[in-house]
């Protein structure tokens, strides 16, 4: 779950919804909050639909065998309906699969969706904040761009790893 948060948190931060403006970090924070809520609601809805479909005995084997196809289709339609980016859709597919692989109940699944969304939001908020601070620092030209972004992601991953080992 931690790896999913780090990987897709970075993907969403780099290629997610419209870039959070670095010059106005408060606006960026607000946008990240809304995105996290959208991710949580979308993943929860798909998990709930999946759990509901499994209760019907007749379609149970089909739902079990073609779960990725069904959840992927639902994720795509819901993402398009909300006018989200392609990366949002891919993040939803990955989150739904990983939570479903944990084989927990619907309520626990929704709780895990909350943990993933909150984790991704936390990663993105830290990333936005550090990038904002980086704007006003004298970063050497050789470190600008991907090297500094990867280093920032590494430091955030390190902090979240420590927090994660304390919490779980």
């Amino acid at each position, binding site marked *: 779950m*931690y*790896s*999913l948060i*780090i*990987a*897709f948190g*970075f*993907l969403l931060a*780099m*290629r997610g919804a419209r870039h959070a403006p670095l010059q106005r970090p408060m606006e960026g924070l607000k946008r990240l909050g809304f995105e996290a809520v959208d991710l949580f609601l979308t993943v929860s809805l798909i998990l709930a639909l999946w759990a509901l479909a499994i209760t019907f005995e007749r379609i149970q084997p089909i739902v079990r*065998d*073609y779960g*990725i*196809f069904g959840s*992927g*289709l639902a994720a*795509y339609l819901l993402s*398009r309906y909300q006018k989200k980016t*392609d*990366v949002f*859709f*891919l993040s939803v*597919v*990955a989150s739904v*699969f*990983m939570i479903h*692989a944990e084989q927990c109940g619907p309520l626990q699944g929704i709780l895990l969706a909350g943990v993933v969304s909150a984790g991704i939001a936390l990663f993105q908020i830290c990333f936005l904040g550090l990038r904002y601070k980086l704007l006003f620092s004298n970063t050497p030209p*050789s*470190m600008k*761009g*991907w*090297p500094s*972004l*990867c*280093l920032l*992601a*590494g430091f955030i*991953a*390190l902090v979240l*790893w420590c927090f994660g080992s304390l919490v779980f």
Partner: protein
Amino acid sequence: MKLPESLFSRMLLAYLPFMVYPYGFFRAGVAALWIVAFLWVTVAFFWFTRRLFPSRSLKPAFFLWLIVWAQAIWTLTKLPPYWIASVYFLAPVSFLEDAAKPSQARVFSKEVPRFQHPSIGAERSLGPSQPPFWEKVKKLGRYFFERVLAGISFAGFVMLLALIREIGEKRLGIHAFEQPVGMWLVIAAVAFLWKNQPYRRRG
């Protein structure tokens, strides 16, 4: 000649789903080779069939194609479907968009053959000045060559990082390599080397 930053960004973003896979060197390598093979098949498939789709349904068709294959591969090999994100970042998906500009879809070159997208090629077919046949073939060859190179570079990148992870985790016993933390620091070092590669003149 310097290797372009755009290739590194594609490889990096396509590698990130591999952080979720708990795979060793061998399995990571096999998964990377599968992704590359699938990327080439996808590019070829959509290149030759794109005219069969209405322009608006081309992108949904691409994602439906990804979902169907994610399901099929999960059923056959139990490979979790995160790999579709890698294919998405490696594929020149922007050429499926109506408003695609040539510069959006490049990997190495500065321009993409204008006739590759129906809406871009349409305006040219009306005019009298069609590019010569050999010019088309040359551009097409270059376009596919770049996709092939992108795939090979990605597979090499994944194998290199998987090897470093294997050595760091198993031989040196550094626990950070079990987690994305260690890999991020390695990727930062690779990004630094990539950005500061020495410039050499051709010939």
